[in-house]
């Protein structure tokens, strides 16, 4: 049994997991249309490489990394989730807290579900790790736990010794990782071996599962026990049960629980020899490397009182949410649709949005499940939020400063360490929507930074322009000056003298001729 550590605060939440974790994962029926947003990850959007009217096959690249270089920017390609025809490339409503439109590729499916050529790496151990990493990048794999950070960015072999697989799934209602760990433990373990190889020989792999998922824990343990040898000779893999406490599934929190290392926001875990990937991401990497299947579907939990058969489905990316809800017994009682968990998710304006790479859960709430938000009361400085904060911040102080838009103070109180986990708002006896204030403050600070960068850029361009104008003026003046006062060299001077002398001689000759002719002419006349 491994020695575990604790992080400060956190909250105990009622799980609501039994709603959806009893049914096996089923494949969702193919919808008529697939809507694929070009930005489904953290980073820069992918570039569409298909045109309207093109026929596409399942697994074919429809949008590539920016400049076709997945390393240059954090970017990830997008593949067609099924075969069909591209019917539109246009702005559509996307699942984002803003409720804004963004560029999407719309595919009308043909129902055949014909695969394009798969390119598995049959013996990946014989290839250099960098090549396997590129293969993973080209498969469009991003963090499927909900953040959507391109996975290949976290697979650089930079002296990593510990790989952690995150199967904590600490938010209530969500059970997609739970079901996946129960049903596909071998794929996860194989994926972990691939990751250890790509990371340049990580020696240790920890798979963390919260202790409210005993079946998943046992399934993974059995899968590890079935292996005679994990990756290399000295490698070991361990399935660890961690206490159920929100937000244990946060990257830095889980690292703290497993290793006791507290890593700040400005540091990357890789600097401490640690890399963490979600269990479903690991499974996707296994499918990509061993079966040559890019990321075109994911497991989605559909739950809440608004559907009659809450369960987990393997949904093709781009599938409209209403289609998925209908397959789970959508009822008219749905009052609110939330993507993600109840703590960190956000309400959606419509159910016509597509499932994207980061859609791990859809909660369809009935009205009796939504407790009307009590109106916020003044802060009484009880400090409950500070006790609950897993990153040791002072939410009550941050709240005052964010409310009065004192962004300097907000920053000096380390707002960017905040992980938006909403523990503070959950425990607040005055029901103050603290996270809303923090998100507001962070967005304002980021926007101000962007403006500052833009202003600096404009200043530079303006100064360069001024310099250029000055230079051109000076050059022009210099040219004039040179023309006026340049001392002529001997050769030109001589040539000019000669020319003048020649011209004078010519005129004199003409004059003389005229003088000779005149008397004769007169005489003739």
């Amino acid at each position, binding site marked *: 049994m491994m020695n575990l550590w604790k992080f400060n605060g956190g909250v105990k939440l009622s799980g609501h997991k039994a709603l959806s974790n009893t049914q096996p994962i089923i494949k969702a029926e193919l919808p008529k249309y697939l809507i694929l947003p070009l*930005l489904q990850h953290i980073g820069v959007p992918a570039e569409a490489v298909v045109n309207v009217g093109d026929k596409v096959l399942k697994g074919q690249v429809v949008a590539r990394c920016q400049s076709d270089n997945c390393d240059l920017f954090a970017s990830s390609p997008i593949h067609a989730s099924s075969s069909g025809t591209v019917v539109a490339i246009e702005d559509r409503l*996307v699942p*984002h*807290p*803003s409720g*804004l439109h*963004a560029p999407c590729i719309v595919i009308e499916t043909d129902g055949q579900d014909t695969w394009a050529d798969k390119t598995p790496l049959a013996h990946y151990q014989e290839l250099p790790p960098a090549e396997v990493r590129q293969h993973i990048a080209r498969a469009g794999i991003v963090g499927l736990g909900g953040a959507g950070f391109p996975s290949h960015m976290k697979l650089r072999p930079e002296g990593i010794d510990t790989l952690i697989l995150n199967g904590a799934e600490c938010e209530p209602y969500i059970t997609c990782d739970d079901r996946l760990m129960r049903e596909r433990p071998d794929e996860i373990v194989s994926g972990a071996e691939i990751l250890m190889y790509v990371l340049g020989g990580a020696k240790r792999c920890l798979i963390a599962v919260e202790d409210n998922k005993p079946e998943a824990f046992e399934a993974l343990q059995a899968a590890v026990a079935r292996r005679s040898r994990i990756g290399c000779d000295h490698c070991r893999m361990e399935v660890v049960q961690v206490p159920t406490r929100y937000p244990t599934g946060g990257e830095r929190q889980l690292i703290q629980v497993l290793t006791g290392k507290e890593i700040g926001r400005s540091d990357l875990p890789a600097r401490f020899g640690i890399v963490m990937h979600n269990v479903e991401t690991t499974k996707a990497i296994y499918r990509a490397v061993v079966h040559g299947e890019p990321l075109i579907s994911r497991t989605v939990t559909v739950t809440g009182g608004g559907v009659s058969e809450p369960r987990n489905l393997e949904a093709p990316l781009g599938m409209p949410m209403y289609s998925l809800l209908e397959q789970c017994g959508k009822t008219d009682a749905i009052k609110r649709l939330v993507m993600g968990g109840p703590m960190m998710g956000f309400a959606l304006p419509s159910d016509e949005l597509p499932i994207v790479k980061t859609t791990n859960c859809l909660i369809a709430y009935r009205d009796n499940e939504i407790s009307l*938000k009590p*109106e*916020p*009361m003044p802060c009484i400085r009880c400090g409950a939020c500070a006790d609950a904060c897993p990153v040791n911040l002072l939410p009550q102080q941050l709240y005052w400063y964010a409310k009065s838009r004192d962004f300097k103070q907000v920053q000096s109180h380390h707002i960017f360490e905040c992980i938006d986990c909403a523990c503070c708002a959950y425990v607040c006896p005055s029901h103050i*929507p603290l996270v*809303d*204030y923090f*998100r*507001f403050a*962070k*967005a*304002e600070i*980021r*926007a101000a930074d*962007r*403006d500052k960068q*833009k*202003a*600096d*850029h*404009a*200043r530079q*361009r*303006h100064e*360069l*322009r001024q310099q250029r104008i000055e230079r051109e003026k000076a050059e022009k003046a210099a040219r004039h000056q040179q023309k006026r006062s340049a001392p002529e060299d001997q050769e030109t001077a001589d040539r000019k003298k000669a020319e003048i002398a020649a011209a004078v001689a010519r005129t004199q000759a003409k004059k003389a001729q005229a003088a000779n002719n005149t008397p004769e002419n007169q005489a003739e006349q």
Partner: protein
Amino acid sequence: MIITAIAILGGLALIFGLVLGYAAVRFKVESNPIVDQIDAILPQQQCGKCGFPGCRPYAEAIASGEADINQCPPGGETSMLALADLLDRDPQPLDPEHAEEKPVMLAVIDEQNCIGCTLCIQACPVDAILGTAKHMHTVIASECTGCELCLAPCPVDCISMEPIPSTTSTWKWPYPVYRLNTAPARATAEAEMESAA
């Protein structure tokens, strides 16, 4: 006795004076000139709405006391407050003489009507317009600061200012707004509204 005291004190004064003098030279701090600090706050649109030909001349005018801190409409209240903070002056409302504060817009050339006269290219303070004589011009959107200086010189009025649409990457979380927990007060406010109507 008195001479000894004077000698000791004088000696001490001399020693400390030398130490301080040396320290002043050795640890001299190249402080950021105030003009640079002011210029760093200004939004760098170079629009000239303040009455000076660009942000730097305005910064110089503020530093020398010729200009007030409330003459920059693109910077708006935010930069006015930052300037007040920096210069320890009293904040004051923006001077309405120098246009109003409004969101940054983007210049767009109606390419059908552009005659290729290059006048806007010469007016653009940040070289954000691309084109040459008798050829169509276009605005490089990422470089445009929205200063509006290209509007006036255009002989065919083919440049317009368009709002920059919010995208999922530039969108900002709004300030949290909720109703206050004051039911009786609300009732009176509603009653007042009714009586006013």
